[in-house]
């Protein structure tokens, strides 16, 4: 159970970073931490003690494998996370070029 609790703690740190910080780069970092925590949680759920990786070996039948389904879901999620991070960084660079700052409270013109 302690693994789950540590994973929740990692999620909470990311949530704190997103909600509390005013720097756009810090917010991107917080989103990345949240993404890592969620990926880790998926893999933690599928883990089985004293087991083998989900890859068959030649000449022997493996009965105790970890759950391969969360791994397959997370594998696509990691690459999507990279692309989404790149998209947010692109928007942040645009904002810096237009307003000269990374501070979200200084960007007045976004407020309607």
């Amino acid at each position, binding site marked *: 159970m302690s693994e789950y609790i540590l994973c929740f703690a990692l999620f909470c740190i990311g949530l704190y970073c997103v909600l509390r910080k005013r720097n756009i780069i810090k917010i991107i970092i917080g989103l990345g931490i949240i993404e890592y925590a969620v990926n880790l949680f998926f893999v933690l759920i599928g883990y089985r003690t004293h087991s083998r990786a989900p890859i068959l070996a030649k000449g022997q039948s493996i009965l105790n494998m970890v759950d391969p389904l969360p791994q397959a879901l997370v594998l696509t999620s990691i690459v999507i996370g990279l692309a989404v991070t790149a998209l947010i*960084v692109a928007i942040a660079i645009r904002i810096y070029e237009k307003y000269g700052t990374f501070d979200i409270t200084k960007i007045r013109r976004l407020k309607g």
Partner: protein
Amino acid sequence: MNNRTLEQKNPKGMTLIVKTITRLTVGLILLYGIYIVLHGHISPGGGFAGGVIIALCFIHLMLAFGREVALKKISQGVVSVLESFGAIMFLSIALLGFWGGYFFFNFFLHKGKPFELFSAGIIPLCNIAICLKVGAGLFAIFTVLVLFKGLGEKG
């Protein structure tokens, strides 16, 4: 001699040490990426990891030698064509499954012996398609994002 002419030809980029090491290692990185992709169905790896490794190979070249050399090897138009080709290849493999009854049908009748390179039906083909898609997409993102100042009016 060859190095010096290359150095004079491309004053941009990093120092000579970095360029020499890059010239030695970049082929090995590309080969490793291709190995990861082709053996994706019998060992750890697959299209996603291999695609990112191949993109990193060209990014390595671009960081060391400057923008022009890397874009001469693989230009922006080629990158967009490769990405579209990966997407269309993946979709057409999926659609060809209707020949056997349903979407993503594994339409090879003889799937080959397990633990060999040519086995598992459509899975290596799908790996190659995903590798093209992921590698070209990430390389395009990097080109636009990191070398943004040098982008100019070309768009």
